[in-house]
């Protein structure tokens, strides 16, 4: 079941478009914001509201890499693996991150704190290597900076 806030936010999005289906991606993002990820139940909820079939919604949800169809950690680390970051030391940065976290790309730490995902170019090529945690962009990465970032989010 959609909570009131979710419903209201999705209804506000509908105003922007000619057709209801257009709000599908935004609806998935809204659910994910409230619930952390999009479960099968979440797909059903959106389908009902937008008058789509659950298959149609899932079809969209599984296409976009920023929609999570599996549970993720409290903080999702998205490390850029595109060409400028690769030239500037992506392999080394990834190696340090996976060692510190004890997980590989696509995995979540046992304590549920971090999920590590590779992501395409963040448009921070002049400040490479780069990664994002939630809404924050971190650039000019090195070992020290990564340790600082992890400590900050570990709290």
């Amino acid at each position, binding site marked *: 079941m959609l909570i009131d806030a979710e419903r209201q936010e999705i209804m506000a999005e509908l105003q922007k*478009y000619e057709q209801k289906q*257009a709000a599908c991606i935004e609806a998935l993002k809204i659910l994910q914001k409230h619930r952390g990820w999009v479960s099968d139940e979440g797909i059903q909820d959106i389908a009902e509201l937008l008058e789509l079939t659950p298959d149609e919604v899932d079809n969209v949800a599984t*296409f*976009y890499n920023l929609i999570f169809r599996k549970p993720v950690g409290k903080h999702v680390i998205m490390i850029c*693996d595109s060409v400028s970051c690769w030239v500037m030391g992506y392999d080394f940065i990834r190696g340090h991150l996976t060692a510190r976290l004890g997980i590989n790309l696509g995995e979540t730490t046992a304590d549920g704190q971090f999920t590590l995902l590779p*992501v*395409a170019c963040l448009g921070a*090529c002049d400040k490479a290597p780069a990664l994002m945690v939630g809404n924050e962009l971190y650039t000019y990465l090195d070992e020290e900076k990564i340790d600082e970032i992890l400590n900050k989010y570990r709290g």
Partner: protein
Amino acid sequence: MEKPLTKNIRLNEEPLSLKGYEKAGGYQAVRKAVLGMTPDEIVKLVKDSGLRGRGGAGFPTGQKWSFVPMGENVQRPKYLIANADEMEPGTFKDRLLLEGDPHQLIEGMVISAYAIQADIAYIFLRWAYKLAALRLEKAIAEAYQNNYLGKNILGSGYSLELHLHIGAGRYMCGEETSLLNSLEGKRATPRAKPPFPQVCGLWGRPTIANNVETLCNIAHIINNGTEWFKGLSYTEDGGTKIYGVSGKVKKPGAWELPMGTTIREILEEHAGGMYPGFKFRGLIPGGASTEFLVEEHLDVKMDFDSVQKVGSRLGTGNMIILDDKTCPVGMVNNLEQFFARESCGWCTPCREGLPWVAKTLQAIEEGGGEPEDIEMLESHTRLLGPGHTFCALAPGAMEPLQSALKYFEEDFKKHIREKKCPWK
């Protein structure tokens, strides 16, 4: 040297508010356009200016607009979209414009929308540009409050709604027709052309999608005219260009320079030359989907026609440098892994061909390559080339591969012969 697009931009400072932007001469062009010019006059002016699309393809902007059906009896609403889904690896020029001067984009969009008599406009922004999203939202609200957007703009009788749409990832969204599907709430797969979006686009209505940098030029052309715009450039293509450099150079960054500035000047004067201890080996001039260029091309002018003449593309004009301590096979492998992952799966050659290319390159890089792999890769550059796929993703992916096989042939062979990457 005039820098119309970046004159208001101060790095690490808040962008100009609407009042500040007006003081700097902003929104005068909207006033001039909607109160004193017909849509036809604007289309003609932009055509005459020689402005070509800055998203990579370089299509003449005014000509694109001229395909939109006009008059009382056309389908409504008509749409204008700012393609701000900047996702071409190595490209960060639109980020500068979006974060640095959001009102400049809005002003360009109002005039462009008026020129095609669009009713609704969207900014399709990529998810990662969080700061740009905040600044655009604020600027859009200010523009509504001051009647540069909304009903009856400045009393002209012309109305325009503008919305910010933030994506959820996938490189494919930058492709014009895929962007339309995404905006309709569907998977970002490409559409067959014709019909072209100018006639049958978003929900089947006439739609124009222009790149951010393209739209940012419009107000300046209205204010200063076509001769001024052509005079900004060193070559046939009018205007300035935001060039960028990333890789092992002293000062990576982006700069607004005359269109047609040479690679050498951009690399040596603006990017400060190579980082100490690293030698230049090559570059891809305009994002991941452009052909490698090498030392002999350093004096090539960075404009659409000059770069095409030497077998590459200007693309986004944001170049990525290959140095002598970076493995060219590894770099191409990285590019093809990206394209294989981002293929939308809509058409078979791209969905099946790109992963094969990527796996082969990975094997070569790890020492498992076979001599016949090179021929197989070469055949893919033809089989996945223009005309064999639904959209430009796979042909674009083949550009750096094809040129790498030509310029770095010996490096590929060495990997296969020695069964390892010589850089590791």
